């Protein structure tokens, strides 16, 4: 069950030019968190902005009761969030939304993340590892300094294939080109992806062409985060009449449900 509470910040540091990692203790909430869900965080209760910011679960440690978020500074809210310090409390609501579905048996899974979109795939990788899955991660960014989650991925124990636009690490080019060039679709049972929409569109197309099922995590501006305000509306397919709500119906959707 989701709740709202104040998390004690035990770690907050910059991991790249514009990305930060924040860890806080909130045991009751941590115990409820599933991969692919998100929390709605208030960057600063006293000085605004008005609304909470939805951030996906990057890592969760149910033993210590902690939740970790990876975020990119994109505006006023995330800029204010960077000012939160160790031992401060952050006001958090969650976990919210429908997360990734996990396989019943161990599978060969492919995780494809772009930029800060890698965040929800880390907690997912941890859960998949516990299920005994064989995990391959394709991770695309602009340049070497933006590849920020290698330590976590190594610790979890996955095969990592990086792609950078400038070729400073790994494959030179788009992560979707890496996918087409280097991944043998017959070795993959399921694909999970999160990142810029054109990237996810390419991944979904690859999956459909090769008959591989999979899921994508979407992003949308939100107000309430619980399906009440109907603000984060979008059509999953062009011909749909009905608008789904990313916060409540998602943020994770199967490739079968959505046309990018």
């Amino acid at each position, binding site marked *: *069950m*989701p*709740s*709202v509470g104040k998390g004690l910040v035990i770690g907050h540091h910059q991991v790249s030019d514009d990305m930060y990692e924040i860890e806080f203790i909130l045991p009751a909430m941590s115990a409820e968190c599933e991969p692919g869900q998100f929390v709605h965080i*208030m960057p600063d209760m006293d000085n*605004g*902005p*008005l*609304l*909470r910011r939805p951030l996906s679960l990057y890592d969760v440690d149910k033993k210590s009761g902690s939740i970790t978020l990876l975020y990119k500074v994109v505006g006023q809210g995330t800029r204010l969030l960077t000012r939160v310090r160790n031992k401060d409390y952050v006001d958090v*609501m969650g976990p919210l939304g429908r997360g990734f579905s996990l396989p019943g048996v161990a599978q060969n899974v492919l995780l494809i993340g772009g930029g800060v979109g890698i965040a929800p795939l880390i907690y997912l990788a941890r859960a998949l590892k516990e299920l005994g899955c064989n995990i391959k991660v394709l991770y695309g960014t602009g340049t070497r300094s933006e590849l920020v989650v290698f330590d976590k991925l190594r610790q979890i124990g996955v095969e990592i294939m990086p792609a950078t636009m400038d070729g400073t690490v790994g494959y030179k080019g788009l992560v979707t080109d890496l996918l087409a060039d280097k991944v043998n679709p017959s070795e993959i049972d399921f694909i999970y992806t999160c990142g810029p929409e054109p990237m996810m569109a390419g991944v979904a197309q690859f999956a459909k062409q090769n008959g591989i099922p999979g899921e994508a995590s979407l992003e*949308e*501006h*939100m*107000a*309430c*985060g*619980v*399906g*009440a*305000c*109907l*603000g*984060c*509306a*979008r059509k999953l397919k062009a011909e749909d*009449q*009905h*608008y789904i709500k990313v916060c*409540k119906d998602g943020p994770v959707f199967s490739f079968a449900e959505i046309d990018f």
Partner: protein
Amino acid sequence: MNKGLINPGELVDISVNLGGVKMKNPVAVASGTFGYGREYEDFINLSSIGAIIVKGTTLEVRNGNKPPRVAETPAGMLNAIGLENPGIDKFLTEYLPYLNQKGATVIANIAGNTIEEYAAIASRIESCQGIAAIEMNISCPNVKQGGLQFGTNPETVMRVVAAVKSETSLPVIPKLSPNVTDIVEIAKAAEAGGADALAMINTLLGMAVDIKKRQPVLGNIFGGLSGPAIKPVALRMIYQVYKEVKLPILGGGGIMNYQDALEFIMVGATAVSIGTGNFVNPHIAGDVAQGIQQYMEENHIKNINELVGIAVK
């Protein structure tokens, strides 16, 4: 001021009667900000809220406006949802029973394209149990027909309120638009139409521009501004109406804490409604009710009605 002195520990009375709606406390949650209640059940006991005013409901299902539908603005937000809702029949059969089972005080919110549609929805509601009152959305800025255009013309306000009144025995509460030159004139028209109370205020029409894309932020171009940014406007309008019209007022516009709520009560609101604040703090309705009660205890005020309009000169 009639200070009914109370002894420590003696209970204060925060229940109110809003034009026939008995509320256990003066704090309601505003239409469109609380879904059908269930969305917030994990965060707040639904039966503890003064009244839940559910999402605006039309005769037929509506899909709403194309996105983007919301945008944050300084001390506020714009929304252009476009009255997305499943239609009155589905509301009555699928959403209302749950709220009743939870013991919630439910106020329906209705909207239509024509006066006949408003009357038809009111008549459907009349045949059902479990609704305490009808709030009339005659002020939604986000739909092409109906809504705002009803709320800005005194003659139509009177006629649409009278039409709904003739179809129902429930208290009728028109929600007034602030997008008018003279709010008192509109409030008087609603009174003449037979309204039992007034809800004030709906959102202020506004817009925002994305300078990167060089186009309006909202898919609907215009949207309704809500949040703390509109509080001073709401207070001023309620003050004006309280002086001229006898009807009880459900006041709201940017309430974020109990101090804000008390401002509304002191300019004449019998009860208050919380809208955008729900998005920030999902149990704000309970917090505000508790804060009002504490304020009364500390200031030796026995009955909340003693505070209504106390700041009006």
